């Protein structure tokens, strides 16, 4: 919960029913009604509107990729197919910026952030779902309440903590907070754990399995669909985060890709050099991994989002 816009993913009315995640399609097509005259007119309208909207949503990507394949003078010509097709920008961008280092840094931060937050949130969620203890409801209420706290309210002391540990200027502050879990994911996973039959775990305990074994070998594997959703959400959040990069990273070589893209915009965009073709190309490089992740995890991402807000 340290980026300011993370709030868009959090909310108290969120729930994640396991049956929805486990099923193949959380959003089945609606039942068809018999066509009439009005039905046909409606269908034509719906089809046309959907087509226009699809173009509106997808075209910026196509524009961006197309622009990245144009020479400097043509970037703003708005042509779909570049008049002169060139891959020079992709070579040039590697010379103009330490792109490889940025990609490595971001990959490292993203993997660490995803791994740590998934495991720690699952641990905590299990503690809340499986056990009864005094103050449990109060503490879980605190988990929910902490989602409402704006990132700005903790941003400065958090910076001072990392500063006093001498870690400002390193990649650590970009992910290490995740070892403590994140309220939203704890909530999500707890809901999932509560949907599993407790008899299963009771039986394992009768068979002599310890607390850790029950969690690690029985509960976690059953939670895989929800863990995948959490991992995908965090992967996206960590890869795209700009603010922590702005706060904590100092040297150009240490930047993440979003932070690097911002520095390129400052240098080549308004800095007077006007190399928009490099900015466009760097934007493609920054965005492409997320598009790939989306196409790999599309079903889980969409089901995960669909289940955040449907249930009161």
């Amino acid at each position, binding site marked *: 919960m340290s980026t300011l816009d993370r709030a868009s993913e959090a909310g108290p009315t969120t729930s994640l029913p396991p049956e929805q995640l486990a099923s193949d399609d959380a959003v089945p097509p609606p039942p068809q009604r018999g066509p009439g005259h009005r039905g046909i007119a409606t269908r034509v309208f719906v089809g046309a509107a959907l087509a226009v909207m699809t173009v509106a949503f997808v075209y910026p990507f196509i524009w961006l990729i197309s622009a990245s394949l144009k020479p400097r003078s043509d970037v703003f010509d708005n042509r779909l197919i570049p008049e002169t097709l060139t891959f020079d920008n992709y070579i040039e961008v590697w010379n103009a910026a330490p792109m490889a280092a940025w990609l490595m840094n971001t990959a490292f931060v993203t993997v660490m952030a995803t791994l740590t937050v998934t495991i720690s949130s699952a641990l905590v969620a299990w503690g809340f779902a499986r056990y009864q203890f005094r103050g449990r409801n109060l503490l879980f209420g605190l988990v929910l309440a902490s989602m409402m706290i*704006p990132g700005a309210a903790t941003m400065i002391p958090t910076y001072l903590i990392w500063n006093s540990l001498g870690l400002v200027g390193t990649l650590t502050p970009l992910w290490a907070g995740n070892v403590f879990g994140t309220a939203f994911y704890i909530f999500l996973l707890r809901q999932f754990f509560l949907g599993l039959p407790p008899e299963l775990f009771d039986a394992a305990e009768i068979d002599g399995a310890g607390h850790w074994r029950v969690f690690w070998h029985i509960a976690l594997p059953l939670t895989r669909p929800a863990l995948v959703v959490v991992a995908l959400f965090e992967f996206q959040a960590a890869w795209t985060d700009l603010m922590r990069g702005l706060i904590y990273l100092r040297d150009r070589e240490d930047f993440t890709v979003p932070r690097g893209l911002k520095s390129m915009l400052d240098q080549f965009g308004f800095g007077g050099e006007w190399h928009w073709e490099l900015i466009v190309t760097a934007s493609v490089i920054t965005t492409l991994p997320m598009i790939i992740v989306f196409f790999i995890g599309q079903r889980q991402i969409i089901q995960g989002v669909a289940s955040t807000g449907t249930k009161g």
Partner: protein
Amino acid sequence: VSLATPASTRAAAAPRPPRGRGGSGRHQGWVAFLFISPWLIGFLVFMAYPVVYTGYLSLTDYDVINDPTFLGLDNYRELVSDEKVVLALRNTFVYTLMSVPAQLVFSLGLALLLQRAGRAAGFFRTAFFLPKMTPPVAVGVLLLMLLNGQSGLLNELLGWFGINGPNWTTDPDWVKPGLVVTSLWTVGSSVIILLAALQEVPEELLDAARVDGASWSRRLWHVVLPIISPAIYFIVVVDTIASLQSFTEAYTAFFGAGNTTYSNDAALFYAIYLFQQAFEFLHMGYASAMAVLLFAIVMVVTAVQVMLSRRYVHYTGGAR
């Protein structure tokens, strides 16, 4: 809303395991505390302590290098007379008041379309969600490129219809509308949440309304919207909190090291000014006071929304 009940009701139903190693473990508080200890530590160190310390810093002058010096309420006095704070607050509220309804109406329209898309719904859903994956920095770059007044794609498109598009990125009157337009591009998750809610609307209710001769718009207003009001409420709350803190797209497009070429006051959101005060000017005390104010605003707005929800949000019984 039953957030905390299932485990306790289940515990009563489940057969008590015999005592032994790990037996009856559900009542062993210390095991539970071990499991939740990561969050407990994190909450104390990275949530509770920072919130309290922000409150303390807001009463001081602090630049990270020298120790904080106590000022009392001076920062807050400065806050109310700081023109830029007033400007940033106004920008943020105006943007929120424009973008939250715009996003809601737009995403509801898209969800209604998707609901009628039949078999192809999956394809369109993917297309609508894709921009949500785009890093906000890249969204900021796209804003500068596509909404550029002279050569941007949007104005070229408007030109086809004989509309002379405004300078979205430089005209102070059009910067915020430009940001709103951009925010419409990333409504994917709202669309998906609303679509899921629409599919929970019982077909019998719609049929009954149809038999009674209710038009499409009446069915939408009197049947569909009340039933999906919890999802709408959720989206409004989440989008409002996010809009009040919006930072990345506007900061990318209009602020930063090299950006001195034109006035960008119109895009100065509260979170941006707070960030500048804290990390560009190192006015940590002043920025903390700003953070306290933001915290208060978010709390008040949320409280108002909770109160309004009691009146306008219908939770139907028997939710699965």
